[in-house]
């Protein structure tokens, strides 16, 4: 019996080893946030062009490491790399789609949009300084609302994530205390609260704990019908997290003045701009050894810029404004093949 198994195993190993390649595949890896829309684009694009573009969500950190190690044709990150880091690694980056981070609460009797928060108060809650929902600082912002004397349970992401990076960057921008004591990163030393795994884990913990506050990507807040908070933006208005308001933040940003597209769309000007907005980025090497693969990657994103907007909107992402797309296309000329010529025009 055992010998039969051993023999069968050896046979299988040999047979599998002999199986050969079917079609060339372009591979990319990185950020989790844009994975659904990249998958959608790849599916449609494959049907039209026959090219297989395999994108896998392994995390932004993974995306950066993999493109540096050249195990993939392109990397992806929710956290843009600073221009000097890009230069040091011979990389370039460009944005693809925009999304927003949404504070969500579980307060019986409060409807979605029924509570207003500012960046400073949000930072105090996450620092563990404001511990009850009827805290004067919160009451002042919500004169009409009936806030219960309920303890605030802070929920944050346990895993490193671009969502946390955007959220903590926003808190650091709006609250000096937060910037000094905690700082901004994809994982920080949280002063208070419990950690949930992924957007889904945060959403579940908020839902199951009365008095909880958390933050999730827009798609999760929308699909789960969660109670979101209105936020005060740079112009002083109270805005709701909607695709329209994310687009407003992206449109108001000065992309042309940002070297290497290093830009966080936090607290942007504009009456409708949602303050915790961010783009997600693709990373590629400036000098390509395989020009054909690089060409295929850029052709894919060129196609997505032209035709991908409806799919993105359907999945609750915000397409880039047209002028930004033009800027990105121009930046692609810097990617050259072994012969020094741009791989894609």
């Amino acid at each position, binding site marked *: *019996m*055992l*010998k039969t*198994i*051993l023999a069968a*195993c*050896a046979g*299988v*190993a040999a047979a*599998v*080893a002999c*199986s*050969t*390649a*079917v079609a060339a*595949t372009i*591979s990319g*890896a990185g950020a*989790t946030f844009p*994975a*659904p829309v990249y*998958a*959608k*684009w*790849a*599916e*449609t694009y*494959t049907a039209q062009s026959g090219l*297989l573009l*395999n*994108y*896998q*969500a*392994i995390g932004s950190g*993974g995306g950066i490491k993999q493109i540096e*190690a*050249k*195990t*993939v044709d392109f990397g992806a990150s929710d956290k843009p790399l600073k221009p000097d880091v890009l230069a040091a690694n011979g990389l370039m980056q460009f944005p693809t789609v925009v999304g927003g981070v949404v504070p969500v609460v579980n307060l019986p009797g409060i409807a979605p949009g029924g509570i207003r928060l500012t960046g400073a108060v949000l930072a105090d809650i996450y620092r563990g300084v404001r511990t009850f929902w009827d805290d004067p600082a919160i009451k002042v912002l919500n004169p009409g609302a009936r806030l219960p004397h309920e303890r605030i349970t802070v929920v944050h992401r346990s895993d490193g994530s671009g969502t946390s990076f955007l959220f903590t960057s926003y808190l650091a921008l709006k609250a000096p205390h937060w910037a000094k004591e905690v700082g901004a990163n994809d994982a920080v030393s949280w002063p208070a609260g419990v950690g949930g*795994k*992924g*957007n*889904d*884990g945060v959403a579940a913990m908020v839902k199951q704990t009365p008095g909880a506050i958390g933050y999730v*990507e827009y*798609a*999760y807040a*929308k*699909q*789960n019908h969660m109670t979101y908070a209105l936020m005060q933006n740079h112009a002083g208005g109270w805005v709701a997290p909607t695709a329209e308001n994310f687009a407003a933040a992206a449109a108001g940003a000065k992309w042309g003045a940002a070297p290497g597209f290093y830009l966080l769309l936090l607290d942007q000007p504009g009456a409708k701009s949602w303050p915790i907005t961010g783009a997600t980025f693709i990373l590629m090497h400036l000098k390509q050894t395989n020009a054909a693969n690089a060409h295929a990657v850029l052709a894919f994103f060129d196609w997505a810029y032209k035709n991908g907007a409806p*799919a993105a909107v*359907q*999945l*609750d992402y915000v397409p880039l404004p047209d002028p930004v797309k033009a800027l990105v296309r121009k930046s692609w000329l810097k990617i050259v093949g072994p012969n020094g010529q741009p791989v894609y025009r």
Partner: protein
Amino acid sequence: MAVSPTRVARRRIANGFFTAACIAVTVLALAALAAILWSLVSQGLAGMNLAVFTRSTPAPGSSGGLANAIVGSIMLGLVAMAIAVTIGILAGTWLAEYAGMSRYGSAVRFLNDVLLSAPSILVGLFVYEILVAPFRGFSGFAGAVALSLLAAPVITRTTEDVLKLQATALREAGVALGTPPWRVIGRILWRSGASGIITGALLAFARISGETAPLLFTALNNQFFSLDMRGPMANLPVVIYQFALSAYDDWRRLAWAGALIIAASVLGVTIVARVLSTEQKHS
């Protein structure tokens, strides 16, 4: 109590307690099992249909299935188990029959136990360093090697334990017939210990069948159907990991269906192996 019970009665009462406790914990274990199985089956069946087995993983909002991941997982699992069973049985045999009390033997035995508890993500990382980074690309082979590193120690350990429990009389009978040790091992010990060794292999298979972490940095995953073990390979655990925590209902349903498929296949393999091993005992 007024009258102290006799020795027999005391033993009887103690035994009653022991029996009741055994039954109670079994019921408790089965209740936990039932609760988890209920979640798995009810949610898994909701996502199950023919397309799951015939089409590749879709983007959210499109229709599709898990065919690429199922085929990929089967290939990864077969190759990994082929490596692990070969190494595990041979290494376990060496430990039980040849190593004796030697220092090297104890070292291997001890370090094998350490390897048992290696967090799977670190094993994946090690394989990434030796098989992915140097070759500039993710591959199904790297994934299979990572899985086999997780499975082999389990098989080694159970093989050694099972062989050591074989009665010395078996060995002596073989020896008396003038058979060399390797044939005694192959013809007698492996055969009489088959049931235990197979249990070890099944536990190893169960352990690796749902592992996500070691595959994330080795086999990666593939949105499309691929039989090429030299490139990124679709597999169920990574698909489940990515889909289960997504915001889209159609992806979540596929994730549960995938989890059910893994559990059912482990069950199927277990049953087949049990039937085979009992058949052999009878023949």
